[in-house]
């Protein structure tokens, strides 16, 4: 029961702060579930994000559900789902009652502009750590994939689903572990 509650309240708190799109939730899930709770390791986290990205639906919701499932099965997934969905549901319900005032408020937009800059910093922080891990591996393929995927996504605006498919195929063809590594 304690696990379900921890999952619920962790995702609730995280979801209330995921301004600016799905990927913002990743740094926060990472610091909560890898660094504080130690429930998931770094490599599995990346795998779960890749799965979250390959399915339809919001990345933030998918990633929370996957972590919940890995930690505590179907009930864990449901606890995390509820925790993730509740904040936007409540916030939008409240805002929809007086949304014109909210949209036009100068104070609200100032707070949000400040938070937007911090969101960019939160993502930059996690990207620096993750990219460092990829480069530290000292293998050429992952670094090449990282650079090309970034170029495709950022400079050319390629749909992420194509990036996922292409990188999965490249991985399956060229990045299988050698037999020796398999045995160890």
């Amino acid at each position, binding site marked *: 029961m304690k696990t379900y509650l921890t999952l619920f309240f962790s995702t609730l708190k995280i979801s209330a702060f995921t301004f600016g799109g799905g990927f913002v939730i990743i740094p926060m899930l990472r610091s909560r579930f890898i660094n504080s709770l130690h429930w998931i390791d770094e490599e599995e986290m990346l*795998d779960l*994000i890749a799965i979250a990205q390959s399915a339809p*639906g919001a990345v933030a*919701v998918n990633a929370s559900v996957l972590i919940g499932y890995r930690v505590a099965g179907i009930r864990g997934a449901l606890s995390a789902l509820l925790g993730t969905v509740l904040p936007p*549901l409540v916030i939008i319900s409240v805002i929809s009652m007086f949304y014109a005032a909210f949209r036009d408020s100068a104070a609200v937009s100032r707070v949000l502009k400040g938070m937007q800059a911090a969101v960019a910093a939160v993502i930059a922080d996690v990207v620096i750590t993750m990219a460092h891990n990829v480069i530290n591996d000292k293998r050429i393929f992952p670094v090449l994939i990282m650079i090309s995927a970034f170029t495709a996504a950022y400079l050319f605006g390629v749909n992420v689903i194509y990036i996922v498919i292409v990188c999965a195929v490249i991985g399956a*063809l060229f990045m299988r572990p050698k037999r020796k590594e398999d045995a160890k």
Partner: protein
Amino acid sequence: MIYLQLFLSFFQIGLFGFGGGYAVMPLIQNQVVDIHGWLDMSAFSDIITISQMTPGPIAINSATFAGIQTAGILGAAVATLGCVLPSTIIVIVLVKLYIKYRDMSVMKGVMSGLRPAVVAMIASAGLSILTLSLWQGNAPSLGAESFDFIAAGIFVLSLAVLRIFKVNQIYVMLSAGIVGLLAYMLV
């Protein structure tokens, strides 16, 4: 039966909404504005604006908004449920396959190919938010008039605090909100 209609509409949005975020906007517009007329186009563009200002995925925000406008709080709950159900089922099936086959060498190869790509996609999303924050939607330029120095200051300070002191991200964001409120008021 408005509840069933809301559920089914958002079930389709959840099922076919690949890519998330802005990629699902046309899909939502099609269901909510064109087919059912639950919201008109100006209410729909308001929900996009509000989605940018509040936490949460755009699909869930529009589900809540359309639901509450047409059928109250229960409508919001039903629409949201419809929206998240398909992807929840699909990711659980996918993760079961992942757990079952992750020791196979093909699966290991696929995952090694995807991991650096995930880092790249997060980087790309982050850079988009950063340029939006520093130039407020204008094309990035070196001119001082369109550059937001307050946002740049908050960004640098937040990043330094995160990297050096490992402060909880939520506290950093809350402080940035307060700093933003005060700093933009003075300028």
